[in-house]
């Protein structure tokens, strides 16, 4: 029998036309074009089934639903879960409403985030950091107490620091789909909900370490690497080993001659391509354990080689102009001595931020 190729759908995103297979989501179509056309994704993770739709970072405007029915969609839609239609016209970074909303999403995600990037292990490879850098604003309008949690012990390898979590549910899907048994999940409701195991149970199975890789922020970190180094001082190389449990294809991170961390390989969208086992990740920390393939190709969101945060490399594009235009500072001349938050002693905030000299739990 002859292979019948499915008819391709033509989609226009930010004025660029692309042909994709039916069933593709807007986000995937945009990623096919690449660059700035691809909406940011904080919760969507292509390898994980069912992920997406939660963070609302990827909201886009559909200016025309399809060739048959060219009406625009009334609300912004989450591009990661909305399938394309033939003749659909999508506005991402060319629509002011989309960018304003995206800025609001950054603000929402950050109001309960500790902003402890200077001491956070994820800094430099953090999705939220990149998202905030690209779409957020420099100041905050939030002056209340931030939501904080005690650090939780969930086993020998993984540190859970809920204060940083943005509740993307990725780690929950990972445990559901990659590991044999999920022991952690989301407890509580609203902004009191938290990722947790029931009564601090340890997460213990061969593939549990993958939750560290999928975490978009520093909520789940590698205890064997914690506070050892900063990402931008390390040198990643692709390596593999003959592993009986997993593919054994990893990225090994060097500081000098020392292997200080092993992670799964990620593609340009910061998504793990092949999940790896805990033995590879946590126990093989000698060069002799690995067959080195060569330097890792740095992904677009990495700060290591892209000089992403250097002032002279930032071009004042439309987004930046908009960022400067919309939120103007308002003179606030009220008497702040009455505000509860001002009267709190500085120690109040101390337990929240991990310190480089903290003993390993």
């Amino acid at each position: 029998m002859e292979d019948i190729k499915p008819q391709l759908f033509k989609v226009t995103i930010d004025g660029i036309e692309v042909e994709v297979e039916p069933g593709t989501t807007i986000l995937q179509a945009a990623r096919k074009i690449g660059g700035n056309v691809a909406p940011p994704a904080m919760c969507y993770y292509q390898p994980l089934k069912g992920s997406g739709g939660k963070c609302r970072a990827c909201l886009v405007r559909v200016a025309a639903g399809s060739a048959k029915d060219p009406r625009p969609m009334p609300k912004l839609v989450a591009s990661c879960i909305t399938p394309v239609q033939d003749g659909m016209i999508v506005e991402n970074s060319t629509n002011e409403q989309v960018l304003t909303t995206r800025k609001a999403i950054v603000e929402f995600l950050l109001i309960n985030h500790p902003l402890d990037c200077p001491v956070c292990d994820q800094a430099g490879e953090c999705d939220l950091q990149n998202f905030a850098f690209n779409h957020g604003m420099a100041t905050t309008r939030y002056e209340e107490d931030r939501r904080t949690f005690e650090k939780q012990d969930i086993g020998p390898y993984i540190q859970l620091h809920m204060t940083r979590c943005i509740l993307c549910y990725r780690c929950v899907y990972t445990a559901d789909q990659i590991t044999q048994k999920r022991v952690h999940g989301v407890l509580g409701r609203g902004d009191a909900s938290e990722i947790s195991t029931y009564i601090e149970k340890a997460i213990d199975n061969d593939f549990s370490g993958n939750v560290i890789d999928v975490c978009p922020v520093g909520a789940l970190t590698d205890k064997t690497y914690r506070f050892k180094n900063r990402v931008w001082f390390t040198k990643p190389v692709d390596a593999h080993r003959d592993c009986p449990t997993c593919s054994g294809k990893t990225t090994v991170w060097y500081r000098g001659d020392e292997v200080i961390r092993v992670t799964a390989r990620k593609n340009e969208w910061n998504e793990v391509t092949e999940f790896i086992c805990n033995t590879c990740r946590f126990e093989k920390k000698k060069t002799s354990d690995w067959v080195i393939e060569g330097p890792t190709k740095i992904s677009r969101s990495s700060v290591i080689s892209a000089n992403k945060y250097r002032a002279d490399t930032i071009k004042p594009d439309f987004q930046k102009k908009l960022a400067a235009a919309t939120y103007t500072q308002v003179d606030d001349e009220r008497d702040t001595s009455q505000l509860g938050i001002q009267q709190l002693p500085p120690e109040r905030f101390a337990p929240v931020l991990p310190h480089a000299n903290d003993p390993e739990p």
Partner: protein
Amino acid sequence: MGKKILLEHINVPGIETYDVYRKQGGYTAVEKALKTMSPDGVVEEVKKAGIRGRGGAGFPMGMKWSFLAKPEGVPRYLVCNADESEPGTFKDHYLMKNIPHLLVEGMIISSYALGANKSFIYVRGELMYVIRILEKAIAEAKAAGFLGKNILGSGYDLELVVHPGGGAYICGEETALLESLEGKRGNPRNKPPFPAVKGLYQCPTVVNNVESIATASWIVNNGGDAYAAIGIGRSSGTKLISASGHIKKPGVYEIELGVPVEEFIYSDEWCGGIRDGHHLKALVAGGSSVPILPANLITKLANGEPRLMTYESLSDGGFQTGTMLGSGGFIVFDETACVVRNTWNFSRFYHHESCGQCSPCREGTGWMEKVLHRIEYGHGSMHDIDLLVDVSKKIEGNTICPLGDAAAWPVASAIRHFRDEFEWHITNPSEATKPGAVFKGDMALV
């Protein structure tokens, strides 16, 4: 006197028992539907009746039924949404508690129309005693042969299950309800797919409100056209209104849609007017999530015509000068009520009930609550008012389910209509924070 459809026999002693209900003409609609009508015939009658969903959104019920996908070999489900938890709404509770058989009968007819052989009533967990009443009614109906295998010899089987919820407001959202019914965390699903295509256990499902389903038996008995003749235009039939607040006679009333709002508040048949010595200040017409209305827009539309209790008239003028009929939670405020405190209270509710799945709602509801708390307790600044408007705008329309909108609308509308009251709280903190202190500016009172 208005026409009564649901509450016609409410005052008959013992109406909660099968025998009395049957004597009042109960279950004749089941007999008529199963013996003389085809399932599609029932759907047709409901379509003709033009009844709009009574849960809040007001989506035409017949249309919802006709959207149900009917693939071969896949079961279909009917789920009754009895997770009524909107502040100010208590009609379903009242109906189920007093005439449980009306719901059971409606469930049998609706399930027959949709071809569902197993139907669920998802009741809010706090209403445990209502669940027992419903279970008793179902047992009685089963004993009388209206449930179970081969009902009335028609070959149609139906099993009714009453499921207690955990008491979360979010589980009143239809997809969160389905998740909860499946035994999962009550998080709303991303749509599409809609429940009519993939609902409970990934099968086609219809989710209807208690009041909508309870109306089905009257429609079958009297015909869709008779129902459509009641009410005005696209707002056909009667509606249960849960009236509460500063009125003389709070309670559940059944009205024909189209009664003027003024008559509903001041007539002795219904609310009986504002309590003595006080004046009408504001109205929340359809449960806490709809926009609040100031006194000058309650009884009259922006163009001076009288406002009626219909879907169209209440939402006349959009959110600038209108509101929504919603679920019929009619909360009346007199001049002793503080709008700022009330808005904070509503906001606190939505903060507490947000499921925490999507970021605008999870973070935004808490933020709005904190800012409103600050204003209410005298620590606000003028900047905070604009901040609230901005945050509510950023939540609205950007969330997975309508809870985000429901949290944003009361805040935005309270500031739109009562901005001077917010400003008074900010400029006179020492006065405003005294117990019972209320703004006495030049606001319009009726």
